[in-house]
């Protein structure tokens, strides 16, 4: 698929003829220098944005022909999101945030289901807290609990540790890894941090809108070296 932004002289090509498949039950990290198109790839793959050409298939459903409402429903049911920051609605408590996707689907979230989801991320006791009463790492875990409550086929994470200190960051990454290992949760994560990427099964390298490399089970050091080469080339 390909994606271009703007027109004429301001035209920016974010993705050129990228073709990737992510396997079920695996943890993939997408890396690349800034401007390499990694965020665009995530947005298109997750149905947040539409590519100009090509097709996106999530869990066997092609996103292209879907209406905005259908696409939204698909995101709600089969896709989970974790973002870098601004992840929770500040007016809602942790429990309310976690239950939100169900409410949006028109269902009243069962208390047990919400609690289970929070327990999964180790925050069973913090349900009544407002986001402002939680640490950054805890907020991110609440966001993960919210993403998981619909039992999504795939979880997308965009720089999930970008706004966290290294120890809370590690906690979040370990949580993601555990979810993949124990529940087979397919996860795709965009990051620029080699240490974060080392938690993944596969690391995909993007540069200038193209996939340029792929490493399996690499060490953080190997990833860092590959990244340095990409950045000096660009």
């Amino acid at each position, binding site marked *: 698929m390909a994606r271009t932004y703007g027109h004429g002289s301001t035209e920016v090509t974010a993705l050129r003829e990228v073709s990737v498949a992510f396997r079920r039950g695996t943890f993939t990290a997408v890396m690349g220098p800034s401007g390499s198109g990694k965020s665009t790839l995530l947005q298109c793959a997750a149905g947040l944005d539409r590519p100009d050409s090509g097709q996106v298939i999530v869990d066997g459903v092609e996103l292209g022909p879907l209406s905005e409402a259908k696409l939204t429903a698909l*995101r709600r049911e089969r896709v989970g999101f974790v973002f870098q920051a601004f992840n929770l*609605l500040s007016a809602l408590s942790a429990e309310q945030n976690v239950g939100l996707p169900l409410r949006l689907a028109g269902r009243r979230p069962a208390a047990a289901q919400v609690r289970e989801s929070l327990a999964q991320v180790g925050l069973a006791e913090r349900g009544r807290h407002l986001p402002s009463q939680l640490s950054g790492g805890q907020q991110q875990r609440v966001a993960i609990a919210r993403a998981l409550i619909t039992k999504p086929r795939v979880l997308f994470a*965009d720089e999930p540790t970008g706004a966290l200190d290294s120890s809370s960051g590690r906690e979040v990454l370990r949580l993601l890894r555990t979810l993949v290992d124990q529940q087979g949760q397919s996860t795709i994560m965009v990051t620029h941090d080699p240490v974060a990427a080392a938690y993944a099964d596969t690391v995909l390298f993007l540069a200038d809108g193209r996939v340029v490399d792929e490493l399996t089970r690499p060490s953080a050091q190997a990833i860092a070296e590959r990244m340095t080469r990409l950045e000096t080339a660009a």
Partner: protein
Amino acid sequence: MITLLPVAAATLRRRWTGFAGAFVALTLGVALISAVGALVINVPDNTDPQGPSLAKILQFMAGMGGFVAIFVVAGTFAFAVAQRRHETALLRAIGATPRQVRLLILAESLVIGLLSAVAGCLLGLIMAPAMAAWLTAQGLAPGGFAPSTSPTPLLLAALAGVAVALAGSFAASRRASGVRPAEALGDAVVDRKVMTRGRWLWFLFFLVAAVIAVYSRMSVPDYMLLDPGMRGPDAMATFSLELDLLAIVGFTLLTPLLIPPLVRLFTLPLPVLPGAAILLARQNALAAVRRTVSTATPVFLVIGLSGSVVGGTLAFTAARDAQSHTTSTARYVIEPVDGPALSASVMRALGDLPGVRTTAVVSTSINGLGSASTPFAALSIDGDPGTAWHLDTVTGSLADLRGRTVAVSSDLARAFRWEVGEQLRTRLPDGASATLQLAATFKPTFNVPEVLLSYAAVSGHAQPARAYLSAPPAPAPAGTVVTPIENWTDPRTATSDHQQTLTLVAILGPALLYALIAIVNTMIMSTGDRLRDFATLQLTGGTRRQVLRMVGAETVVVVATATALGLIVTAATQTGTLWLINNGILDGQAPIPFSLPWSTVGVSVAVCLFLALLSSLLPARLALRRRPLELAGVRE
């Protein structure tokens, strides 16, 4: 949708400060509508036919209240939606459809509408008796006037409050539903297009409405003259007020287009000055166009409204003076020292004066005339009307106003299709009925009422209250006072001015109150929006004082911009009003020169600046008490 109601409620609970303005405005609107409703039901029919109808003033007040409340609610919600762009994008990303986002905003406004309806009705119950007492004290309502206790006005007002809340948040809810889910990933705060297509459409709508209003005023169909509010120069005053309001609202819609260049212009010399605060203020005002528009609009409304309405009123007062000056032909006015009327012996003495022409008059009222069944204020005239005023006769001759005759303004004659020579039945003040022949029609002026009666038609019913003289009676007859015409004030003008002032208060009062609420509300909201900016500024080495100076400078820039817009619109409405007066009323004689009501504008600007500074600096000062790192973590 039901499952989302708790979400809407939680949002309102945590963010109530942002919606406080909408709540206050709506509550006041509902209170005003319910109180006016309770009063209007009990308004007696037969109020002073000379003055504007009490029911009309009250209805105008309520209408104005509801109308301006829509603007405040719309402004508040537009702001709240713009502030929550990220959250909205997040909602969309995790599975809210555009429709759900729209419904969520509408649900919030519904909750606010219901709360305001209850609070407003309670307030209205207190307000109604207070208003009745005030109206009685001002002589606008008879003694013993009390509001109705019927529940209908309360119900209607509550409904109106909810409807206004929904209408006000409709545009904002549509904008929120247009937020793209991908925006949750980035955090672009550079405003996108603020001059929306909706604004253009509404602007066109108001433009067309203004053109239609001017056109219909230039060629008023006869049937429209049946409404007393459409006849004579006072109708012109109402009409120019309506045009002013159209112009101001139309202008408000264009503010996103006009504000950025004005901000740029006003701050052009500032970056040269040392200090970061002013540079930041300029860049902030330009980068966040929507915020600048939201904060500048209520200030503009206060200045534009007070400037245009007070300016227009002053112009019409000047026109009245100018017209009584140019149309007066008498040199002196003689009145009794005390008592309502000149005695018969004085009248005889005046008649005997050699070389002095005398025209005696008495104000009266008649009930019904020909096919018209309403009461009319009338003046009965003994002598040649030409001795008192120069009136432009349209048909017939005022010299024929003798015996059992009547003369009416040409507008009144046109409304009922009366021709000179026609016999018109009427009922005199004492209840006697009489048949009068129409002697003449004249162009309406401020100086005389619509109906002039020959003195003979009412002789025996009333004694003259004053007489106009062509020369001084030397010496003045006992028990009378003689005033040169240039020093004399027509009691008719005095009542008219008093009523004009009351109408002004009734019209401007609610509108200004709302606009002031909106200033405070938007300022507080916009400061809350910027806590992270403040933190960044502090973390990069800015002192608290510098942050406050930046906030202050930005507020001053916004108020200055709004003042410039307000002056532009006031100049425009004033030009239009004077054109109407000079061509439509004074016929190019002694035209009134252009002037702006500087003192009113000055006071408005001072009040706005004070409120705006207070409501931006105070919350900023409070926020700065917290440590910058804490602020930096504040979610938008």
